[in-house]
């Protein structure tokens, strides 16, 4: 041994450094995971803190004199009696009386505190209960969106950046002191369609639009996807043609969704001249988009059915179709269903292709079917996010929470189905 340093010494000399490197490497891994999880937490907290107040709305208490003569109601039994009645005027008079103003500019500033939708709710209440006529009733009226943002910013101590004048703020402060301002559960948000006024905007229209779109998608893509998967797994000969189909499906799964929007625009809208903005076209486009996902997951589910089942069925004299329909499909169904649910969740959250086929239109009416103009929930979020009104920020976040809620439910259902029906051979 002429060498002064043995291998052991060489190794030992470097050992501490190597252990440090090992620790560092591990740390990078942990940091990466923490980074991912932090992003998730930050995203959710951001949305929730911005949006939880979207579920409540601010209301102002006002005693309104429902004198039928002032309202212009001659005969309460008449069909259109309440449609033409001047509830707005009554509310305005009540407001002026409450704040004791007479100057025209002040009146206008005062009117701006109450939402233009308030008179409808008073009208509906009186219509329901005509005995209220000719009495003086107290109502909680929907406040304007600026009042809403101001009132909600009070307890967070966040600076208020709205458009309220000194005088309006003074009025509001007197209302707060006398407890005539409150927040209440925002039913409008869940029961009405879109609106230019943030305090009156709701998600029902968009949610139904999404529902119809996803229903069309499900009805078309599930049977077609399963049929395609059955063909490829059970029937297809191994040749170039089926290879082509297979490569194609894998590629389609990775084509950007906006391309499917372009396809829908060119084929369904320009060529077949279907109307724009309807859930039917949206559903067709999303069908094409989700088909690859459903086919791939259905194929995996069919592949997981052991060959012995098939052989047993064939051995007992079943034909191929009987084997598929009576044995393979029922056993593969849980897997296919989870795949379909995940595909539907994907379709539910998709926005870009729907933009292309015109589902970005401003639609106030709640759609009643697949042929009515509609928007979808994610598109509604996109529209509101673009809106300059500050109050739409919390509406957007609230709508996002609803959308995420639906997605969460669908994914939970998929997981539950998988756990429940999973079978091991």
């Amino acid at each position: 041994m002429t060498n002064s340093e043995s291998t052991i010494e060489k190794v030992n000399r470097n050992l501490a450094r190597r252990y440090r490197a090992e620790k560092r490497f591990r740390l990078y891994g942990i940091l990466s995971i923490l980074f991912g999880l932090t992003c998730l937490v930050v995203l959710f907290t951001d949305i929730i803190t911005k949006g939880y107040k979207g579920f409540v709305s601010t209301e102002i208490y006002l005693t309104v004199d429902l004198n039928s003569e002032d309202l212009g109601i001659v005969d309460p039994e008449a069909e259109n009696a309440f449609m033409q009645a001047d509830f707005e005027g009554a509310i305005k008079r009540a407001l002026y009386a409450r704040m004791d103003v007479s100057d025209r500019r002040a009146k206008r500033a005062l009117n701006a505190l109450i939402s233009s939708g308030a008179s409808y709710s008073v009208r509906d209440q009186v219509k329901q209960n005509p005995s209220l006529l000719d009495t003086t009733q107290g109502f909680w009226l929907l406040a304007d969106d600026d009042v809403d943002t101001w009132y909600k910013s009070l307890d967070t101590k966040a600076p208020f950046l709205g458009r309220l004048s000194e005088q309006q703020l003074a009025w509001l402060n007197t209302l707060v002191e006398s407890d005539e301002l409150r927040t209440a559960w925002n039913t409008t948000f869940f029961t009405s369609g879109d609106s230019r006024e943030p305090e009156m905007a709701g998600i029902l229209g968009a949610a139904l639009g999404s529902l119809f779109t996803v229903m069309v998608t499900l009805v078309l893509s599930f049977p077609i996807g399963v049929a395609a998967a059955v063909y490829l797994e059970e029937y297809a000969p191994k040749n170039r043609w089926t290879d082509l189909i297979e490569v194609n499906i894998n590629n389609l799964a990775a084509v950007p969704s906006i391309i499917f929007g372009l396809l829908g625009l060119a084929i369904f809208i320009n060529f077949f001249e279907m109307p724009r903005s309807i859930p039917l076209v949206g559903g067709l486009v999303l069908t094409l988009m989700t088909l690859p996902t459903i086919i791939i997951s259905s194929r995996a589910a069919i592949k997981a059915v052991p060959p012995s089942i098939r052989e047993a069925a064939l051995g007992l004299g079943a034909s191929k179709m009987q084997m598929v329909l009576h044995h393979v499909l029922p056993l593969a169904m849980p897997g296919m269903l989870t795949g379909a649910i995940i595909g539907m969740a994907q379709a539910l959250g998709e926005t870009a292709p729907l933009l292309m086929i015109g589902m970005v239109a401003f639609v106030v009416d709640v759609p009643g079917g697949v042929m009515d103009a509609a928007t979808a929930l994610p598109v509604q979020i996109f529209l509101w996010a673009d809106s300059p009104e500050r109050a739409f920020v919390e509406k957007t976040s609230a709508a996002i929470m609803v959308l995420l809620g639906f997605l969460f439910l669908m994914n939970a259902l998929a997981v539950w189905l998988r756990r429940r029906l999973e079978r091991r051979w």
Partner: protein
Amino acid sequence: MQPITLISTLAALAVFAFVIGRGRAMLQSQAVGGARSLASLPFYYGMLTALWCALPALLVLGVWQLFDARLIEWMVIAKLPAASQALPADELGLLLNTVSNIAQGHLPVESQPAEMVAAAESLKNIQHTNRLAVTGVVLSLGILGLMFGWSRVAPQLRARQKVESAFSWVLLACSCLAILTTVGIVFSVLFESLQFFRSVSPVEFLFGTQWSPQMAMRADQVGSSGAFGSVPLFAGTMLISFIAMCVAVPVGLMAAIYLAEYAHKKVRSVVKPLLEVLAGIPTVVYGFFAALTVAPLVRDIGQSLGFATSSESALAAGLVMGVMIIPFVSSLADDVISAVPQSLRDGSLGLGATQSETIKQVVLPAALPGVVGGILLAVSRAIGETMIVVMAAGLAAKLTANPLESVTTVTVQIVTLLVGDQEFDSPKTLAAFALGLMLFVTTLALNFVALYVVRKYREQYD
């Protein structure tokens, strides 16, 4: 009849066909010794009759629906005076619109010129005849098919074989839908792009560095020449995708390594699905988050450090997109890392290497092709991603490498060009299809390479 009622009638007819076909088979079998002497089960005779009833009728209905609108339009045009027939296509379209509005009663008849009213009248007539004709033809086809199928029912008919071959044809048709979709994408996008390239040269589109797709409404309008150089858009897309990959690749890869090599099974089973939640969040939510939270943050930090930062920066969009892509990278990398055989690790560990040395020098090189494939797929995701960039990246087509500036991307431009009212023969709208074609080709090429690499790699350890 409306198509929906027609289809339901046909369905009812098919059910009836099933019942009588099955019944006839049963009846005939009695003469020759009961249901056992039939060539197939009675169910198949019913099925076959139902198929004969429904399939041809449905096919004809489908083809009819594809072409009747065009045919009616053509017949109405033939009824119009020669002067209107000679109008350019878009004005003719407008005219036809008016005609159909009159026919539906949306426009008062009195205020319209006589020939328009006449055209509307004939449109109404043709539509009425068309509806009658389609109902008649489809229903009689259904009944004829039913009768034919019914008449063929005989004990020696091999009904099951026929039903099963029809079944397998239907299955084949369903799986061909994928090919049809691709063909549809290629043709629709290619066709409109070719129209675009008739007015803008492909060289200018591919290599031009000016993008301002404003076309003149009038010939004498100022500053509306329209420039269609797509280089700034692709540069912007690349910049944002690069930033996204700078976030997603290291984080995703390290997360995958940790989860596959170090993490306890329980930790893994909790953390992996949690990370995958990031991939399941709709992109519009990320867009909202990027535009309202990250972009102002980036701007404030940039400005406090003394950089000129625009409120819509490539950095904000790229960062958020990177977060979205983390799970794609990590899941794919996790798959390939787990596929590396344990014997390789054992060999390395047995020689005295630490775990991280094993990973860096043995596992990762072995998994490299798969990881690269996964990253390529993630890049194609980033290039095609729309909502985040639409909401957070901006519209200014600038050639810049500064991530603090606002840039625009291919998908943003497609959306801005196509959302809203537009006519379909101006280069401005057609440009969106040309961009779509480029996007499709790029992502397709990336996917092909990625799938090829992943597949080829996977076979090595099988």
